């Protein structure tokens, strides 16, 4: 089994961190993993994305061209990556910032109002964790505990430990919304 995930959005939306949390968790669960970033030409505020692979076997190409999952945080990313999802794959749309609907009907599409949820939780920067929670719930690619217990401090550092509870909540909310939409 190989999950080939692309996570995309504006710079500042935490797409890189989302990818790293996944990658680290995959490694911790003894899978082969890779993470590869890609930045646009803008200094800040432009679009950015990363490719994450979590696999039973050694990772070949670290570039995700055909994804099993795309997580898109803004409209340009939806436009760019919708078509890259393999038939049968999954697409997670941040419906807070993206009004448009997916056009594909051969994939599972999830609409997650990540910014709204995050704002409700009182920290708009947790929108990416909402998406992450949703994705893990739907895919089961790694365990939520691995993210929270191991990956979180490894990626963000000890000094962010105080943010753990709110991030946990964000992930749970995301998971909940995904569950509702799961077929």
């Amino acid at each position, binding site marked *: 089994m190989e999950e080939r995930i692309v996570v995309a959005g504006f710079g500042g939306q935490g797409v890189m961190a989302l990818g790293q949390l996944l990658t680290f968790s995959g490694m911790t669960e003894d899978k082969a993993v890779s993470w590869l970033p890609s930045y646009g030409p803008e*200094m*800040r505020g432009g679009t950015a994305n990363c490719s994450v692979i979590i696999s039973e076997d050694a990772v070949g190409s670290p570039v995700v061209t055909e994804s099993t999952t795309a997580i898109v945080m803004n409209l340009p990313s939806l436009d760019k990556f919708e078509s890259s999802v393999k038939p049968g794959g999954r697409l997670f749309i941040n419906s807070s910032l993206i009004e448009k609907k997916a056009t594909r009907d051969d994939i599972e599409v999830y609409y997650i109002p990540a910014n709204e949820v995050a704002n409700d939780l009182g920290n708009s920067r947790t929108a990416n964790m909402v998406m992450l929670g949703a994705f893990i719930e739907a895919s089961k690619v790694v365990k939520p505990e691995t993210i929270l217990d191991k990956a979180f401090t490894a990626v963000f550092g000890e000094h962010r430990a105080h943010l753990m509870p709110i991030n946990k909540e964000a992930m749970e909310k995301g998971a909940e919304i995904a569950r509702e939409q799961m077929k």
Partner: protein
Amino acid sequence: MAVIFERTKGLTEVETHYCPGCTHGIIHRLVGEAMVELGILDNAIGVAPVGCSVFAYEYFNCDMHEAAHGRAPAVATGIKRVHPDNFVFTYQGDGDLASIGTAEIVHAAHRGEKISTIFVNNAIYGMTGGQMAPTTLIGQKTTTSPQGRTVEHSGMPIRMSELLATIDGAKFVERVAVNTPGNIRKAKRAIIEAFKVQLEGKGFGIVEVLSTCPTNWGMTAPESMKWLADNMIPYYPLGNFRRPEEAE
């Protein structure tokens, strides 16, 4: 009812890629306005550096060259020697001009090349993500001076205007800042004066503009303006270091 301020024709319609609040945008505007006011836009050939302003060739509304990192003065020399009647300018950052391009700027000044240079000093390498520049202040933290710059390890920051003013061919040298509307207006006057030095065939002119980098300084844009005033101006005093009257 009169429009007293509108977008200058000296710039193209393209929106810049600069970070929010980055003063590169202000300086671009001043250069564009200066060219329009002096009536030299159609005659101008500009040289963009490598740095955050690498895409300046998309923004200045005249013929443009993109130069290799630090080599804009050499490129401008090549252009000006072929087209002595065109107005030729370079736009360069502090990594570009004060580090890798030190020899090129010193020798453009030394030969008295009749070109004009806008030198944007933001005390950091913006484009590559905030590394230390030769102009980085003591104590300033950057990605390659994570504990803050120290004199012992890297010396005191270099003051290029003072250095260039020792060169005879540098006929106009002034340091300005763009942190307040007043300073911005003064900056524009200096740019116009520098351009005139070229137009009158007197020699090389340079305006050092103290500028901000909110992104890599890790501040909001308004905070950056204050940091510039509180930290940069005391070490990099504003003022004119050289103008033709004195030089002759």
